[in-house]
C-alpha cells in the first residue's frame, strides 16, 4: 500500500499531442508513457533521473532547450521533442558513442532490444562521418567472471544505469564509475573481477542495461512467455519465464506483480537450471536389494498401495511440502485423513 495520495493530473502538449501526466512526473516520463519516443539512454523508469546522456533534450516554449528527464511537467507546458538544433546535438552525441562502439550488432545479445540502436535509428547516422570519427580500436577485456552475466566495457555508454540500479534498487553498491576522461569506466572497487566484488548476482543491472554491455549468459530469445511465481522464498515474486520449445531460456521479473514490481534476486532470476538437470527423476524407482530400479507407474502405484494399505491409522505419517502448490498440500492432507485415517500430517513450516 503506498500511503501517498493519488497525484494530481497535469495537462500539457508534446509536439502536437495534448496529454495528461501525474504531477511530479518528468517531461520524458510523460512523453514515454504516452507513446511519444524521445531518445534516451540513462533514463530508466525505476531510477531517479541522472541527466548524463543528454539525448533527451527537448524545447520548451519560452524556455529553450532543457533536459527532459530532469524537467517536471507543468500545467499548459508546450514541448517540442525535436528542433534542428536538438537534432544536430543528438546526432553528434550518438556518433561519438558509436565511434567507440563495436559493430557486431547482429551477434550481440541486445540486438533489436538496444536503446543505442533505437536512438541511432531515430537520430540517423552518417556512415562516412562515423568511419572518420572512429578514434581507436580499443578492445578492452571482457569480465566473464560472473556465472550468469558478462560485462563488456567496449559496449558501455556510461549511462550509469547499472551503477544507480546496484546502489538504489539492489542496495549493494558493488559497482561505480572508475578512472576519468576517455578512460572512464564502470568497475568494482579496486577494479577486481565482478565475481570477487560484493556483487550478489541479482542481475538487476543487466536487466536494465540499455546496450549489450551487460548481457545474460546462456539466454536465448524466447518463442513465448509464461507468467508464474518464483519457486524459492516466501516473498512470492512474479516471474515471466521465457520458453522456447520445451526449454526455459530466460527469466524476467513481472513488472505487474505488486510484490516485486519486476525485481528479482539471484535465485529467482538465475536459479532455474534444476528444471532440466540431468539428475531429475524421470521414472519411478523401486529399491531392490539395496539398489534403485526403474519401474512403470502401474507397478509404482501397486507398490505404494501395498505398502501404505497395511499400515493405516497411527502407523502412517505424511510430510507435505511447503515448496509445492496449494493443490498438492490439500490433496496430501485429504489423502492422509480420509484414506489413511491419520492426522499425522505436517510440513516444513516449523523449520
Amino acid at each position, binding site marked *: 500500500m503506498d500511503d501517498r495520495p493519488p497525484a494530481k493530473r497535469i495537462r500539457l502538449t508534446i509536439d502536437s499531442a495534448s496529454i495528461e501526466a501525474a504531477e511530479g512526473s518528468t517531461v520524458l516520463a510523460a512523453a514515454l508513457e504516452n507513446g511519444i519516443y524521445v531518445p534516451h539512454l540513462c533514463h530508466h523508469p525505476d531510477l531517479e533521473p541522472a541527466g548524463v546522456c543528454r539525448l533527451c533534450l527537448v524545447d520548451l516554449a519560452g524556455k529553450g532547450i532543457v533536459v527532459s528527464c530532469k524537467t517536471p511537467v507543468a500545467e499548459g507546458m508546450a514541448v517540442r521533442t525535436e528542433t534542428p538544433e536538438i537534432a544536430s546535438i543528438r546526432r553528434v552525441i550518438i556518433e561519438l558513442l558509436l565511434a567507440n562502439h563495436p559493430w557486431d550488432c547482429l551477434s550481440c545479445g541486445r540486438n533489436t532490444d538496444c536503446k543505442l540502436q533505437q536512438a541511432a535509428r531515430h537520430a540517423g547516422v552518417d556512415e562516412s562521418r562515423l568511419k572518420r570519427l572512429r578514434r581507436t580500436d580499443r578492445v578492452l577485456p571482457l569480465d566473464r567472471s560472473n556465472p550468469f552475466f558478462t560485462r563488456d566495457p567496449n559496449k558501455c555508454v556510461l549511462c550509469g544505469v547499472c551503477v544507480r540500479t546496484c546502489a538504489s534498487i539492489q542496495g549493494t553498491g558493488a559497482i561505480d564509475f572508475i578512472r576519468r576522461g576517455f578512460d572512464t569506466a564502470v568497475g568494482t572497487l579496486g577494479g577486481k573481477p565482478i565475481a570477487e566484488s560484493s556483487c550478489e548476482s541479482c542481475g538487476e543491472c543487466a536487466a536494465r542495461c540499455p546496450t549489450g554491455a551487460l548481457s545474460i549468459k546462456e539466454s536465448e530469445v524466447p518463442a513465448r512467455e509464461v507468467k508464474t511465481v518464483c519457486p524459492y522464498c516466501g516473498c512470492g515474486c512474479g516471474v515471466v519465464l521465457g520458453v522456447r520449445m520445451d526449454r526455459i531460456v530466460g527469466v524476467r521479473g513481472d513488472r505487474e506483480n505488486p510484490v516485486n514490481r519486476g525485481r528479482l534476486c539471484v535465485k529467482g532470476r538465475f536459479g532455474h537450471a534444476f528444471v532440466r538437470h540431468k539428475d531429475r527423476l524421470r521414472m519411478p524407482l523401486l529399491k531392490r536389494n539395496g539398489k*534403485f530400479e526403474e519401474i512403470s507407474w502401474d507397478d509404482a502405484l501397486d507398490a505404494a498401495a501395498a505398502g501404505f494399505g497395511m499400515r493405516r491409522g497411527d502407523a502412517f505419517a505424511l510430510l507435505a511440502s511447503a515448496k509445492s502448490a496449494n493443490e498438492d498440500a490439500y490433496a496430501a492432507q485429504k489423502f492422509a485423513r480420509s484414506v489413511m*485415517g491419520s492426522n499425522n500430517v505436517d510440513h516444513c513450516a516449523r523449520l
Partner: protein
Amino acid sequence: MAGLAATFGSGAMTNPISDVAGARCLFVIGSNTTQAHPIVAHEIREAVRRGAALIVANPKRIDLARHASIFLQIKPGTDAALILGMMRVIADEGLKDTDFINRRCEGYEKLAESLAAFSLEEAARITGVPGRQIADAARLYASMKPASILYAMGVTQHTCGTDNVLALSDLALLTGNVGKPSSGVNPLRGQNNVQGACDMGALPNVLPGYRRVDDPEARRIFEAAWECDMPGKPGLTHAEIFDAALAGKIKAMYVIGENPVLSEADANHAKKALESLEFLVVQDLTITETAKLAHLVLPAAANAERDGTFTNTERRIQRIRAAVPPQGQAKPDWRITCMIAEKLGGRGFGYGEAREIFDEAASLIPAYAGVSYERLEAGGIQWPCPAKDHPGTPILHVERFSRPNGKAAFAAVRYRPPAETPDSEYPLVLTTDRSIFHFHTGTMTRKSDGLNLLGREEAVVMNPADAARIPAADGEMVRVSSRRGEVQARVKLSDTCPAGLVSMTFHFAEAPTNVLTNSALDPVAKIPETKVCAVRVERTQPGRAGT
C-alpha cells in the same frame, strides 16, 4: 505460528510487503532479510531512504545493520528479554496507546504483570545490549508511527519461539501498531508456500482453513464433503513423527518434496528414524539425501511444469503455470497422491486438473471462498476473500481481530534461556543462517552450476578472536562438533559474528549442519531450536576422514 494465532486470531503476516516502504519505523528482528527475503530487504531500504527509522536486532552484524538507526546485537536466544525490556520502557514512560488498548484489546493486566517482574536492567544483562540502547529503540518504535515489525526464523526457531512471538504481538498492541497501513506484526515465511501449506491443512491439529480436527462440528463438514470417517485426535508434529518412527510406532511414511535428512534438527536422529521405517515413499525432483533411504521414489514435476497456486508470506494467492512439460514421466504432486488414493479405494480423488482441487478447497475454506482461477488471472488476491465480489484483504485486523469477541489478547510473556548453553566442553554457540545463493537444503539451487560457483561450500563463520584461540586460519578446514554429531567445513573469519558465536547454513549435503543442532522443542509450536546450540570447533587432524 501459534503465538500470533493466540493473540490476534490469525498467524499470518498482518500487512502486505508493499506496505513496508511506507512505515516510519521498522523493527526487524531475527531476520537476515537481505539473504533470506531479498525483495523485502529492498522495501526496507526504500523505507530508510524515505526517512524511516530502522531498528535491527540480531546476534550477527547482518548486512541490514548498515542501514539501521539502532542495531541491537543481542545474545542468541534472548529476543523475549529484549522485547520485554522495550515494553517496560514504553509502559514506564507513558508511551503506550491507551485508547487502542481500551478499545481493541483485552488482558492488559497479564502483560502488566509480566512487565512488573522485569526491569530494563535485567533486559540489558540478559541480552548483552546496553539499557540505553534498548530504551532508545523502545522510544523510536513507540513514537514513530506507523511502525512495523518484521521477523523470521531467528525468532521462532527457539525453545522459547512462541514466547518471542507473543512478546512481539504484545509490543505492537501496546503501541497501537496493528490494523493500519505500514504497521503490524509480520512473520516472513521461508519457503514459497509455507503459508499455503498451512492454509490447506497440512498440519496435524487443523483441517483446511485452520478448523481443529478435535472439533466434531468441523470434522462433520469435512467428512460430509469427503465422504469418509476421520480421526478426531490431533496427529503428531514433524519432530514427534520422527520420534514415533524411531520408537516403531510409525511404520510407513510418505514424504513429499521435503528433505528432512538435511533440514531436520539433530539430523542423525531423523535419519535413523527414517531408516527404521518399514515403508518409506519419497516424492521429489531428484534423489535427495532423504530419497536415498526410501523404498519407493516417485518422480514429481517441477513448479514450472504444472499449474496450481501458491500463497505467499503476505497471504497473496497467486497462480503458477505450466511453462514446459514435465521431464520424463514426472507428474504433479497432487496427481501422484490422487492416483495412490484411488488405488487404496479413496473417494473424491478423480480430479482432472489442478483447478478442480482449488475449487474444492475454496468451497471448504471461508478465507478462500471468493477466489477462483478465473479471478487470479487478473493478479493475486490476499486472503481473507470470503466472496466472489470481495477484493481481498491486504491488511488484517483493521476493524476487529479474528478472535471470537473481535478483541486482541495481550499475553503474559516470560524470558526463558535457550535449552542448551555453552560450557567448557562446547564453548561456542552455533546459530544457523542462510545464503542468498542457495535455498533450504539445496535440492534445487545446488543443481545450478552458477549458484554453486557463487556459493561454493559451507563456511563456519567465526570471529577472529575465537579462531585465534583454536587456532584456525581463514579458509582452514575445521571440525565442528556438538553433543549430537560433527561436520567439517572451512573457517570464514568475520566480525559479523561476535566472539562466542559461530554461524553456518544448511544448504550443503557435504556438511550437513543439522546433525549438530538441537531438536529440543518449543512446547507450543513444536519448532526445534536450530538457532542455538553449543558446539566446539577444532582443527581437523591430518588423515582423519570426513563425516
